[in-house]
């Protein structure tokens, strides 16, 4: 018996077709421009696919749905043909983020196994703000911008991933929940902000364990491999300053290096110990004056390959210049790279960006003594 919390953000995705980027705060404007709600269509697509897959699956699992009334979930579930539905929250006539949050609290109280939602990064942020990493989440993509790592690639694929997770064929991984600064995005600036991390069913990258035998690689094990590689590089340069960047991959890797790091903060190691935690820009600059050799370890954030975006207060263009582009070490798991076709840099300083992107391929550490060359965005 699997209990799934389900909700739809009815206005997610309305902006795109009428030339608006995102809908936060501009729902009325979108409606005025004649935007149709698309979240419902996407949700229905995913739910119908799920039903079809369940029918074609031997020993299909029993599902019970906890959801919100009307357009925030119940309607779509009924339309897709599900019957085991329990409405745990009644939405307001004009649904808003408050409804999302109230529903999630109900889901948590009822101890659902997973929360399936349809929306965009904003919806993901609203949900995670309450669940943290306690309950896995999975997003049916429908917003205009999808930078968080918790979404399936398409509604149909999301249904497949959900089913495989319920059948215990795949496991969970930690992913970055990000958000764009909406205002800046509307001004064509890619200020991707890391918000927090969440657990989501994750299609693993496969490794060839032996000839013709392919097994799913365990994300946590891969991060430990990366940590082992970094350990060797750090130990080989005892006098160097090593800065650890933001993100869930860095956080997991830091943990394996026995550094208790926050998700968003920049920490520094030197001489085998921690010399700075959660550093501000000026603190980083000060440290840089004291160490000749320096390295900055970064990982692409979210699902779109952003290594450095605008609005990063600690890793400002000044800091990056002082560190030196050649001293940046990139890390990522193969599963993350499977969805990241290119690496992106958008620091706000065009000359610095050009420098960072001047090499068409950059090496990314993906395991112990394993790196991969990944294309950079043009």
């Amino acid at each position: 018996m699997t209990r799934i919390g389900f909700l739809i953000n009815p206005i997610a995705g309305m902006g795109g077709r009428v030339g608006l980027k995102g809908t936060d705060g501009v729902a009325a404007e979108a409606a005025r421009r004649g935007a149709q709600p698309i979240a419902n269509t996407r949700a229905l697509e995913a739910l119908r696919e799920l039903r079809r897959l369940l029918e074609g699956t031997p020993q299909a699992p029993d599902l019970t749905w906890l959801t919100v009334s009307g357009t925030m979930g119940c309607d779509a579930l009924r339309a897709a043909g599900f019957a085991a539905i329990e409405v745990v929250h009644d939405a307001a006539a004009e649904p808003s983020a408050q409804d999302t949050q109230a529903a999630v609290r109900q889901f948590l109280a009822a101890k659902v196994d997973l929360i399936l939602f349809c929306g965009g990064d904003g919806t993901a942020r609203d949900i995670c703000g309450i669940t943290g990493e306690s309950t896995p989440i999975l997003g049916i993509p429908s917003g205009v911008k999808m930078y968080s790592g918790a979404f399936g690639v398409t509604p149909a694929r999301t249904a497949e991933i959900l089913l495989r997770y319920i059948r215990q064929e795949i496991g969970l991984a930690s992913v970055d929940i990000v958000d764009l600064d909406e205002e800046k995005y509307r001004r064509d600036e890619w200020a991707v902000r890391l918000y927090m991390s969440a657990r989501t069913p994750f299609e693993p990258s496969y490794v060839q364990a032996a000839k013709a035998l392919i097994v799913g690689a365990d994300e946590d094990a891969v991060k430990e491999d990366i940590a082992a590689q970094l350990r060797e590089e750090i130990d080989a340069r005892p006098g160097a300053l090593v800065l650890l960047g933001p993100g869930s991959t860095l956080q997991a890797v830091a943990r394996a290096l026995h550094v208790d790091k926050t998700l968003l903060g920049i920490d520094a190691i030197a001489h085998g110990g921690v010399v700075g935690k959660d550093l501000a820009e000026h603190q980083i600059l000060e440290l840089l004056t004291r160490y000749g050799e320096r390295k900055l370890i970064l990982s692409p954030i979210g699902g779109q390959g952003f290594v450095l975006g605008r609005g990063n207060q600690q890793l400002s263009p000044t800091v990056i210049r002082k560190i030196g582009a050649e001293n940046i070490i990139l890390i990522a798991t193969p599963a993350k790279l499977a969805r990241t076709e290119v690496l992106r840099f958008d620091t706000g300083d065009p000359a610095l960006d050009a420098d960072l992107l001047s090499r068409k391929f950059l090496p990314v550490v993906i395991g112990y003594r394993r790196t991969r060359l990944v294309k950079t965005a043009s």
Partner: protein
Amino acid sequence: MSYVPHTNAERSEMLKAIGVADMADLFPDVPARVRFPKLDLPRPVSELDIAREMRALGGRNVAVDPSLSFLGAGAYHHFRPAEVDYVLSRGEFYTSYTQYQPEVSQGMLQALFEYQSMICRLTGMEVSNASHYDGATALAEAVLLALNVAQGKRGKIVLSPAIHPQYRAVLKTYLGGTHAATIVGDEDASADLPRLTSLVDQDTAAFVIQSPNFFGQCEAVEGLADAVHRAGALLVVVTDPIALGLFRPPGSYGADVVVCDGQSLGIPPSFGGPHLGVFAARMAHVRRLSGHLVGETVDADGRRAYVLTLATREQHIRRAKATSNICTNSAVCALGAAVYLATMGNNGLRQVAELCFHKSHYAAGAIGKLKGFTVNPQAPTQTFFKEFVVRLPHPAAEVNRHLRERHGIIGGYDLGRDYPQLRGHMLLAVTEVNTRASIDRLVRALSEIAR
């Protein structure tokens, strides 16, 4: 040409379906300058003539009568029950691949599971893999396992010089690539067990001995495991599978890993290969074992079934500095060994081992009485099994030439090739295939050149 079954008509149809005019058009991406080279190979031989030609090639070897061969040193002439080759000739087994589709591979999987079980009982260990290439690579794997257990924090391997020289050479080639460990102990060929044990310390990952050792002698293993474990190291024992039919297994005296070459278990010497790497260990180390593991489970209908399991170990194995890429094995030889052990059984293996014991002692006794010949000069009272050392009155090559040319006997191994202080010493092996008459003939032949 019978190997390729196509008729002209079929070939034409297929080319047409693909959309090319002729066979040469199937290689558009191969650069013209290197395409279709003229290979300088001999003209082909027909199916009618190939056996005859190969027989002639084999005829350029001097014919070997196993009962008149006293050469061992890691490869042996032993009795092979006919059931072994009967099973190994089944095409369902030997033309199959590794068992990645368990639903149609239950035959090999169950056979290998049974092999694993028998190896465990024979060695006194708790888990065995489904084989390595040979004894030497099994030993290399055992050392890598010990380094992994120590998680890279220990870098020393204490290695007995009485281990097969080629095993030690292969191990050193393997470790040369990674700087994962240094080897001590075997540089001094005269080092005895107490001296080697004194080298074990907190930096030691493994202490490796062979028993019966390369010289046929049973090492004094009492208390050894305690000393090794006190230092936090693993005890790795190389052994002989026939000896396990008679003597207490290494598992009973505290070994952590047991390896050997299983060629003696129903596999012919075959000029050195293919042989069989046997690898068994304590269950605590199962996740660091390389090679295939067959496990028991059930199928969708609840039937008992077998499957290759714990494949994700490979990732963990890759993590440490000392890594392994060994995943192929010697499966058909493991099958052969399983058939041998099943056919000989508890009783039969014991009989083989006793025959090897008694016959080798008989030969040693008789040779020891010859003037100028000394048996086991460096360890005259130590228990030995199947092989023993003889100090000769003349160089070993001369002795062997005399034995061969005058008496059609293949003599023992010239120990001077690997141990400078053992020049003029020979390692003689006597197994159940050497009759009393052939042993007496050997003794008589040696007496002719006694001083």
